[in-house]
């Protein structure tokens, strides 16, 4: 078993499938009255969050607690971190506390890689800068597999700000590993020039959302930050949503079985209209529930055996 989950590239097809299968068992157990499992009793999981992300932190916290791990939340605000303590010094502190796993969310790409050089425990990347968010990709893949029955051969469009999206990077890597075919869609300014060569040679790129929709099993909309406008990535929110937003008319171009995903938080009216977000094809609420199961699976597989 792997020691850290820093990137979706840490997972080969067998390991990724094992995580998804395990997540399935975890989800089944979540239906019981007693949701708690004794599995990680005596183990310590630290949530080290340098960015505000209540939903991801709560998801990891719920996952760790359902497995009976001791959870320590260490957020940058109001801690030694905001007093200028370096990541390395924080790492040495966590090391001294005997953290078995550190779940890290950080605005700098690669921070989990650095952390893994300084602590003995497992490091789980909960989102680093514009790099990756592998547990989001796992819960997305899990959601697709539960809705559509498989991943191999699925056509998935990832739409929006691919350039700045850690969700897009992790999903592209993981979905390709699991046999799906990924098309990246967005304005050329927001799709890295050499994205296929860099991440997945089979990835396709399109600048025209309407033309790809009829072939898709999954359409994943990415959050687009309005401040990208000031940097001239696109002219206006209105033009963006006209060209790349998912509304009812566009959703009708998708095959009947196709689903709509969004990692959240959404900019309703920007990349997705409320009618689409709340439609029966949308998996947005399921994704949140599946997040806990996927993270339980990751924590179990990283910590549930011999260190």
């Amino acid at each position, binding site marked *: 078993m792997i020691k850290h989950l820093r990137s979706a590239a840490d997972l080969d097809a067998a390991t990724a499938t094992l995580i998804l299968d395990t997540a399935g068992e975890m989800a089944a157990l979540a239906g*019981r009255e007693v949701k*708690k499992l*004794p599995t990680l009793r005596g183990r310590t999981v630290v949530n080290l969050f340098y960015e505000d992300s209540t939903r991801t932190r709560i998801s990891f916290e719920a996952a760790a607690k359902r*497995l009976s791990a001791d959870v320590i939340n260490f957020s940058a605000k109001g801690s030694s971190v905001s007093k200028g303590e370096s990541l390395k010094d924080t790492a040495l502190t966590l090391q001294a506390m005997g953290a078995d796993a550190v779940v890290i969310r950080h605005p700098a790409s690669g921070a989990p890689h650095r952390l893994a050089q300084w602590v003995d425990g497992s490091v789980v990347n909960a989102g680093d800068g514009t790099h990756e968010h592998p547990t989001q990709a796992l819960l997305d893949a899990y959601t697709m597999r539960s809705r559509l029955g498989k991943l191999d051969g699925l056509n998935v469009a990832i739409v929006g700000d691919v350039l700045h999206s850690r969700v897009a990077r992790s999903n592209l890597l993981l979905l390709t590993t699991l046999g799906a075919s990924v098309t990246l869609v967005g304005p050329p300014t927001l799709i890295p020039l050499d994205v296929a060569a860099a991440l997945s040679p089979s990835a396709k790129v399109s600048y025209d959302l309407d033309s790809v929709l009829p072939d898709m099993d999954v359409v994943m909309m990415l959050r687009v930050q309005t401040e990208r406008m000031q940097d001239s990535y696109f002219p206006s929110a209105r033009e963006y949503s006209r060209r790349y937003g998912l509304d009812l008319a566009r959703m009708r171009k998708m095959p009947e079985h196709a689903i709509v995903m969004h990692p959240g938080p959404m900019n309703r009216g920007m990349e997705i209209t409320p009618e689409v977000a709340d439609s029966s094809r949308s998996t947005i609420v399921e994704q949140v529930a599946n997040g806990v199961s996927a993270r339980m699976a990751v924590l179990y*597989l990283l910590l549930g055996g*011999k260190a």
Partner: protein
Amino acid sequence: MAQPRADTPSKIILSASDLHRVVDRVAHQILEKTSGATGTVLLGIPTRGVPLAHRLAARIHAFEGIDVPVGSLDITLYRDDLRLHATRALGKTELPGGGIDGLRVILVDDVLFSGRTVRAALDALNDEGRPSSVQLAVLVDRGHRQLPIRADYVGKNIPTALSESVRVSLTETDGLDEVRLTGSEK
């Protein structure tokens, strides 16, 4: 699968026909001890407890025409020795449609050894519901208990040394039916 390596001393404890006879006997004992297996659920512990539970149910049906519900109870997440081994993949937990509340649950496993698996199964069961009683059926009891646990139904008692291992093969999981004792007595 499950064939011992040629250089490992091993002997067959139960042949296929022995094994079938033993299962028949346990099925009869269950019927006898539970007054016809009413209000009873068989829960197999993966991996080999699950096909054994199905076999017992099939034999009970053959003898008395009674359908005993069968399910599986994975105990991996309740084990107390997780840290001693590489991470294990999870097995399936599937309770019968009627659940287990108020019913007699018979846990089914292939080998009873230290008793730790059964301890974990009792913990897991406790989180799944509240049966009226819990019994234990095993194909082989090899001794060396580390906990105060005993089986209600035992297919065969096999005295063993700690250095030996009991290897149960079932056609459903291993392609053949037999029980072997491997490893030398020292």
